[in-house]
């Protein structure tokens, strides 16, 4: 169950990586900060401005949780859109090499991460996340051998809803079709009347939204936010995206779940200090035998 929850988080973040990669063929290294932005935004909004730090109950809880997820998602979307507008679009105008995008992404990631570290934002230490949902109460005391808390339950449900919505969005809406067209061939899509700039921003916004939701869920689950909280989950999510076949939405979901389960199993069976070694070894093995990941690179389902 722990592995599954981790897997859903990875899957949510991996969606952003895989969508941007599918469209721009760019590893968006700044996606980890977009993820962190969601958590940090809710930390600010609830902890400092609204002052909701005590657990709430009843219909209020539903309202508060929805608001938190939406705030996290929207702020992260904004950050992702700003990133695209300020950093990537100028590069696209100049027809930069792909490595320049990568370095720009790394630079943007450094910039934002260490701005959060400044005292007027988060500071260096861990800050406790507003505790608006009771961390102890459990929906099921013993589900397949684990105690499932409300937050874990919420995390799984939210993730499944998000993944289903995104899958429908990509495969059945007009915008989704444009995104798929762009991932096949940008020039051809442009000739067919797709507004490339707008679709690319949309991709960033959608990916950013899910990353923001994941950031909020992460904050709720682990109870704190820290300026570089995105680095490790971002790395893992990227690994998950590659594992599933980068550029492929369903691949990202499956890769995320697979990675979460692998990590959990290896820390149970071998020891948690080896979990990263095992996870990356599995990744290398999968890529050696199937160089495009589990699901291949095609974006649509």
């Amino acid at each position, binding site marked *: 169950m722990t592995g599954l929850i981790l897997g859903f988080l990875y899957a949510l973040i991996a969606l952003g990586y895989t969508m941007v990669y599918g469209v721009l063929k760019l590893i968006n290294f700044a996606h980890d900060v977009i993820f962190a932005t969601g958590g940090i935004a809710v930390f600010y909004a609830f902890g400092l401005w609204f002052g909701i730090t005590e657990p709430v109950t009843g219909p209020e809880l539903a309202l508060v949780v929805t608001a938190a997820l939406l705030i996290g998602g929207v702020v992260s979307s904004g950050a992702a859109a700003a990133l695209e507008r300020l950093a990537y679009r100028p590069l696209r105008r100049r027809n930069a090499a792909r490595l320049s995008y990568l370095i720009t992404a790394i630079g943007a990631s450094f910039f934002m991460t260490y701005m959060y*570290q400044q005292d007027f934002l988060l500071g260096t230490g861990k800050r406790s996340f507003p505790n608006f949902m009771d961390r102890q109460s459990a929906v099921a005391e013993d589900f397949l051998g684990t105690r499932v808390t409300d937050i874990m339950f919420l995390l799984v449900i939210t993730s499944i809803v998000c993944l289903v919505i995104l899958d429908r969005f990509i495969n059945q809406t007009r915008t989704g079709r444009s995104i798929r067209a762009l991932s096949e061939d940008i020039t051809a899509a442009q000739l067919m009347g797709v507004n490339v700039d707008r679709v690319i921003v949309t991709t960033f916004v959608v990916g950013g939204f899910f990353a923001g939701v994941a950031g909020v869920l992460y904050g709720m689950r682990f109870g704190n936010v820290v300026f570089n909280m995105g680095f490790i989950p971002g790395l893992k999510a990227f690994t998950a995206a590659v594992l599933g076949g980068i550029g492929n939405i369903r691949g990202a979901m499956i890769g995320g779940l697979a990675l979460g389960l692998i990590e959990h199993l290896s820390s149970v069976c071998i020891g948690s200090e080896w979990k990263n070694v095992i996870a990356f070894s599995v990744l290398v093995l999968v890529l050696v035998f199937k160089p495009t990941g589990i699901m291949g690179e095609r974006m649509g389902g």
Partner: protein
Amino acid sequence: MATKRDLRTYLNEAYPKTSDRLPDGVVNAFNGPYRAYYAIGYWRYLVAALLMATIPILMEPSILGDFFPALEDSVADLESPIPYLTGGFGIRVLVMTGIWILLALGLSVVVGMAGLLDLGYVAFFMLGAYTTAFMTESGGADQFHFVVWPNVAALPFAILVCILAGVALGIPTLRLRGDYLAIVTLGFHEIVRQSANNLTITNGSRGIPGIERPDLGLPESWGEFAVLSSHNYWFFLLIPAIILAVIMIRHLEDSRVGRYWTAIREDEVAAAAMGVPVVKMKVLAFAIGASTSGVAGWIFAGYATFISPNNFPLLYSILILCAVVIGGLGSISGAVVGAMLVQGLPEVVREASGGRTVFGFDPETGRIAVFGFLLVVVMIFRPGGLFAPKRRRIELSEASAAEGVIIDESAQPSQDEIEFASSVHEASQQKEGD
């Protein structure tokens, strides 16, 4: 005169001599000067060596007296003109910059020349450092070394281990395209680092202390420079190592191997079709890149005398890639300058700020933010890096010659044609104005 050559011969023949690329008459008239021009290629190394040699002299001017006895009396009491260089923090940054230059040079072979995106390069650095620690006297318990050799004897083994690791990483990952290779190399770094963190022979995260320093037996009259524990000592290892690495890479660049790498970087399928041994060349790129970081690892182990997995975070692999790209992919001077920027710039920001804050922004803790911002700005305004290589241009012109495009004077537009074209252009502009 440009003769008709196909791409195959372009890739396989020896590098065209200057005289082959010039008309006969020009060759006869300018043969001497052109030879001199090529010789300047080597002079540049000498100039670079002299420039770097000024660093030790600036640090301790009295050293001049050892080399030039006539000056001995006049320089004996000179103080260093830049106190920053004589000890403590500044000089540590300089030594680390030197090590990073070596790393950046190695990575520029892998990424810049062969076009293989390597995000785990520091893993080789780490292997080099740990090999050194295993083979020499290191402090603490006996279990941290397999043999006890003098530090210098560990150097060839540090290089060898790195080359083997490069081959071992290269062979299974060769089928992968750019971004998959990036994540696999990144995973390789994490696998190596976490293993060192968890194994007993590496003493886990506590690291290996008390590694012996290499004793070059410098004369005692060199003062600080002969003292093993001083920072100054390391310039006599770093400067030759950097110069040798530059010479090696410069020669590789112009060799057949270098052109194979270029071909693979530009279009792997086409290169394979032209008979480039893609697999062999990729493994070679990994191995040569790794060997440089083996030397860097050896120097680092001796310099720091203490290594632990925390000295080699994933962030460094990413930063070193930044150094190579920000300097200019495939450019040697770019790699050197990039390493200086990555290692030195945050420290300069820290020094320059002197503890002041700007609108609540503290440059000391935020120096990486400043660095990140500059990375973005540089990439937007100079996407090819600060020292975008001239080689790209040369390659393009040579490639067109290789494809058999013969530049014909008569194909240029005549004066009449140019005038006609410009009058048409003016007329169309007037029409738009109306």
